[in-house]
């Protein structure tokens, strides 16, 4: 009923956003690096007591909502929200699941967030309203 490429774009949008949110959550929580035992990159920087405690909890396999930093909560909520919207959207619309488009855009979203974050960290990107370190 709908063109296959439009179907791919509709699925790709959700995949890209989900990948982006996943990438952001990975940056904030640091679960991936801690679990693999490697210590490098921004995920292991000491930012605040709250973030350190959250990391320790995550490394021990416990993710406590109250201990997550504000940005981590937002990312986690956005992730669950997007997944819920995507499932309902695909279930009740003529759009059908295209796994290749979804996985490709998921990876693209994750990479895009990583690139934006690193560029901003190095001062190559400036956020609107300016950055204020706390």
């Amino acid at each position, binding site marked *: *009923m*709908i*063109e296959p490429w*439009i*179907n791919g*774009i*509709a699925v790709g*949008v959700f995949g*890209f*956003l989900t990948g*982006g*949110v996943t990438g*952001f959550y990975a*940056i*904030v929580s640091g679960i991936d690096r801690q679990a693999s035992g490697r210590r490098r990159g*921004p995920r292991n*920087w*000491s*930012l605040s007591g709250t973030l350190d405690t959250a990391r320790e909890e995550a490394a021990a396999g416990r993710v406590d*909502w*109250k201990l997550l930093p504000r*940005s981590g*909560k*937002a990312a986690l*909520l*956005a992730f*669950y*929200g997007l997944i*819920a*919207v995507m499932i*309902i*959207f695909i279930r*009740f*619309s*003529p*759009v059908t699941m295209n796994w290749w488009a979804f996985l490709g855009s998921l990876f693209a979203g994750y990479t895009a*967030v990583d690139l*934006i*974050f*690193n*560029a*901003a*960290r*190095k*001062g190559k*990107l*400036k*956020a*609107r*309203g*300016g*950055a*204020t*370190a*706390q």
Partner: protein
Amino acid sequence: MLLIGLPLGAFVGALSGFLFLLILRAGFQGAGLKHIGLILGELTALVTFALGGSWFANSHILKSTEAGDMLSPYLLSFALVFFLVVCVPFYQIIARFGSQFGEIQQAEEDKP
């Protein structure tokens, strides 16, 4: 059908994008299973609206249009506009967060 599907999809996409951000913002204020259930309910209502709820079924303006014909342009513009509306604030958050990380890292490196 392009003339109806594209602007309608863009309008509903923009509206849904802003509503999605507002729902997430509201969901951020509280915690607990009841709160998450409410948020999921609102998101379900949002998708129902986006896919053509009562505004489509009861609309006199759209009565003469065939839904199947305008579906492709509608979905295309809906997906793209929704993406843009959600992406812009998300980009700002990541860029601000990265800048803060950079500043903190710089401050830690500068410490004697």
